[in-house]
């Protein structure tokens, strides 16, 4: 249990670039180094983590449950999110304390613009598999963009897209 907590604390502390970027690290730890999960079970966990709402690192709850039951699920979940939550809470405090400092405001404005720009890189990474399925599908992505801008709920759009995809797969697959 202690090892479970320590290993997932480390995953949280090293997950630079977000949860998706940390999945290889989780694979190293749970499959290769400790043998907690078979690689098939790990793949199932990743699939479930993507299918559930919220962060993909909730994968920790799955691994924790398989290793040590309910207590394990709770331990691994708290451990993997402890450092990121603490850092984020700390940064909001620091930002609050320095509010009104011209330098920090400038830092926030420039860093903010850069962070939004970086979403473009994420977007390219997400568009790539869509392009690989069929380039014309990106037109449907654009349709989702327009629908969301016109007020359609993101959750409903996701549900509709999943249903349409499932129907398409069932008919043609």
């Amino acid at each position, binding site marked *: 249990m202690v090892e479970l907590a320590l290993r997932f604390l480390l995953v949280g*502390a090293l997950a630079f670039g977000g949860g998706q970027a940390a999945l290889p690290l989780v694979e190293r730890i749970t499959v290769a180094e400790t043998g907690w999960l078979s690689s098939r079970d790990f793949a199932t966990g990743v699939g479930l983590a993507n299918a559930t709402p919220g962060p993909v690192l909730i994968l920790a709850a799955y691994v924790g449950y398989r290793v040590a039951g309910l207590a394990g699920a709770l331990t691994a979940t708290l451990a993997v*999110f402890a450092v990121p939550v603490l850092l984020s809470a700390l940064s*909001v405090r620091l930002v*609050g304390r320095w509010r009104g400092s011209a330098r920090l405001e400038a830092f926030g404005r420039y860093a903010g613009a850069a*962070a*939004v720009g970086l979403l473009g890189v994420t977007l390219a990474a997400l*568009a790539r598999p869509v392009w690989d399925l069929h380039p014309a599908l990106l037109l449907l*992505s654009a349709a989702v963009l327009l629908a969301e801008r016109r007020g359609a709920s993101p959750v409903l759009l996701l549900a509709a897209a999943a249903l349409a995809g499932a129907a398409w797969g069932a008919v043609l697959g």
Partner: protein
Amino acid sequence: MPPGRPGLAALARAFLRLGALAFGGLGAALALFQRDLADGRGWVSQRDIGEALAFVKPLPGSTMLQVAVFLGGRLRGGPGALIAGLAFIAPAAALMTAAAALAVSLPDAPWARGAVGGIQVAVAGLLASAMWRLARSEAGGRVLTLVLAAACALGFFLPAALIVIGAGAAGAAGRGGRGADG
């Protein structure tokens, strides 16, 4: 700054709901936050969400959870941050534990693969929409638009944390002594 400060119970309810609805990764979650917390409840502004993204992006960990924690902290300080984080993560943790307990696995069927493909299509569109909205609120003026474009281009080659901190540091160094600019 937000016009109305919610109570901790209202905050917990709101983030519990967001945690249950945040399917599809960071882009879809950002679109959801913008819709619910900014447009719907008016607790935060689009700028607050952009600022949250700017300060948590260089940190390790799940970005969408950290944006939730940052906004919770912006609304209600330390307790708000903690409650937002716990509430946001609770639905996923419960679902995931239940799935592990039931030894559920996703079927490897054509319809399931189709559904995943459909979600990928939608998520790309939702992220583009979130990015559009944030670009409008964050990149006022020619210099910031340039920073945004440069970060996007450099992002393909350099670590994200380096770019965000570098851009922030450049801004602080260049503009620190002066007042508003744009």
